[in-house]
């Protein structure tokens, strides 16, 4: 384990792809990173030297990905509704299987803590569970009234959380798919009557490693959604009773939206803000409403992932770069 020092955040590497980037994830080993881009491709990056391999298989953009527990496979979810399992440690990575899984966009894919299940959610408002080793669909159920934007397994391995456009965060018991409760993230929903626009949503969900807190990321104060005027917002909930315990806001980011959040440890959570105010890494703790630290990024970021043990943050950027930052001196 590295000694984390978020105040020393600095860019270690920046590697260029062929198209603006959309999403990224760091492998569990920290030896590889994957990104997706507007040309519908995936890029596998060797974290040691920045060499990349191109993966082609989707007919549309890919907003969401998840490595399996061993890090030798990757599952990607595309806007065409297709899930693709990739082998990613081979010299020539290949498709293991492709499944037409959803009607419309897939917005969230995540592998369970024990590595046996994967969840996928999207615009068809259905949650689907898959066996990671065979790709067999285990369960599916209609779960929300509006598009499902995000999904996350609780570290206890027994619960699943899903968040939608309206800011509803449903907690599901995996054993029988019953809904335990709904967390109220309505402040993440930004309808604008003048523009006849519905905007916002639970763009990302994360849970602290000890399982005690849930984080929901997105935007609020959407005074002009069409003009990208909206501010970042991170909600902190108590897992035990679902109560909202803090709304983390940020000053001076009039054009910000938190595309993703991730818990670095039980004390600190990070999120990446994109939007017209640029790319910014934000760090929060339980005691302060506003961020405890922010680090500007060289270009607008659209996604982020962390490798907490190595103190690494990957960010996917509009300027076609994948950037790897270190949270240490």
């Amino acid at each position, binding site marked *: 384990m590295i000694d984390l020092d978020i105040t020393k955040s600095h860019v270690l590497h920046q590697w260029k792809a062929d198209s603006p980037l959309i999403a990224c994830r760091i492998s569990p080993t920290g030896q590889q990173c994957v990104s997706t881009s507007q040309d519908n491709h995936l890029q596998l990056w060797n974290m040691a030297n920045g060499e990349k391999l191109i993966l082609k298989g989707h007919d549309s953009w890919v907003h969401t990905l998840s490595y399996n527990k061993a890090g030798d496979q990757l599952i990607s979810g595309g806007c065409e509704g297709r899930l693709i399992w990739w082998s990613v440690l081979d010299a020539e990575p290949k498709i293991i299987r492709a499944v037409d899984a959803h009607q*419309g966009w897939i917005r969230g894919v995540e592998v369970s803590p024990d590595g046996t299940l994967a969840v996928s959610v999207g615009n068809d408002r259905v949650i689907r569970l898959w066996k990671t080793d065979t790709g067999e669909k285990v369960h599916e159920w209609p779960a929300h009234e509006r598009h499902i934007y995000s999904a996350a397994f609780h570290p206890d391995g027994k619960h699943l959380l899903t968040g939608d456009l309206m800011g509803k965060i449903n907690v599901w018991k995996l054993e029988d798919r019953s809904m335990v409760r709904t967390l109220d993230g309505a402040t993440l929903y930004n309808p604008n009557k003048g523009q006849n626009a519905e905007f916002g949503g639970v763009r990302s969900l994360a849970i602290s490693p000890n399982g005690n807190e849930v984080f929901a990321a997105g935007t609020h104060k959407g005074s002009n959604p*069409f003009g990208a005027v909206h501010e970042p917002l991170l909600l902190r909930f108590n897992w035990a009773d679902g109560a909202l315990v803090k709304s983390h806001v940020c000053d001076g980011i009039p054009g910000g939206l938190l595309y993703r959040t991730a818990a670095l440890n039980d004390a600190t959570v990070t999120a990446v803000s*994109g939007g017209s105010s640029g790319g910014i890494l934000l760090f929060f703790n339980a005691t302060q409403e506003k961020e405890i630290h922010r680090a500007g990024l060289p270009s607008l970021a659209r996604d982020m992932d962390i490798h907490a043990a190595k103190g690494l943050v990957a960010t996917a950027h509009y300027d076609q770069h994948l950037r790897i930052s270190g949270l240490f001196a």
Partner: protein
Amino acid sequence: MTKLARYACGGVDHAVNRRKFLATASTGIGAASFLGGVASLSHRAVGSPISKNDYRVVVFNMHGGLSQLESWDPKPSTRTGGPFRAIPTSVPGIHICELLPKTAKQMHHLCLLRGVNTSEDDHGKGAYMMLTGRRQTPSAEYPQVGSVAAKMLHDDQTGLPGHIIVTPGGGGGRGNEAAYLGPKFNSIHLGGDKPPQNSSKPDAIAADAEARRHELRRKINEQYLSQRRSAVTDAYTHSYEQALKLMERREVFDVSKEPQAAQDFYGQSELGRQCLVARRLLENGVSFVQITHSNYDTHNDNFNFHIEQVGEFDIAFATFIEDLAQRGMLEKTLVVVLSEFGRTPNINLYYGRDHWSKAWSVVMAGAKVARGGVFGQTNAEGTEVTEGQVDHGDIFHTILRAVGVDSSQSLIVDGRELPIADPAAEPIWKVLV
């Protein structure tokens, strides 16, 4: 500004009698009566005689600027294409965006104009151009297509206004859309699927008392008009009488009068119900209905917004087209889908598309427009028109021609000859049948 009616020399309302205009224009005889001189000889004749009730126009105004890439001219798997795929339609070889699956099944009724270049990226100016067929200038104001259609096509005997605009909430309606045609041809604005505001008689006023009030008003009006008649007083009088007729026909605006099956067919979305109102208005003789679908000005999060907006449009629009076709109304109804401009092929930093007028799309259906075709083409990334370029002026001419109006004709207003469409443009003949 008050314009006095000059009946002796042919004021606005008398310069061109619609029935006579259309009938004579259709044969080419007597055109000089309206145009005069050599100019009349160069004007084309309309193909066949029509009566003014025959044709209708419906415009879907996709307010804010619909993305052509997320609708009529998709460029999947290109730098500019975005996340959506193209899907086949009912016409082999023609593909549109996957956000329009129901509309794709009605493609055999539609004509896509993919080569629109209006070179104007300002909302207000772009809207003016698309609705008047002219560039905005400080020196002249031109009537919108709804006012022209009302003048040329509408029969006052219907008891309904000829020019109706449906907007979410019913805002607007105080503009000078009719310009030199006069206020009679300005629009009535409807909010959603509701009748015009204040169009029912208060219960406290008995019917006979109401009749006596109007009788008194008419007598006073006649006394006044005998000496002080002007275009404005005529418009004022017309508005009163039209309002009374409209009150009598208030049920036309009430979609609950439709059979439940029809209501179910159109669905419960606001746009769906507005389309059902539009169909009822057309059936009852309204010549022009404009439905505003808002909003498409998606500089930010373009794709999420288009999922919502185009998704709603697809269901309502496809249902409307199918319904008109099944009822045989499409033969005499021109449907146009337009915006003030399209959106940039380039995708900006926050998944948005900005204003783009150099290469975008307009759709027409029905009346004299060819069915199931595409006119015009853009390059692989949708950044330029490569074939069949047209502009707002050409589209305005085409709209009029498609409903049997000779767009090369002029109106005589205050002694001046005013072409009803820009003489520098011309109809897109290849899409007219």
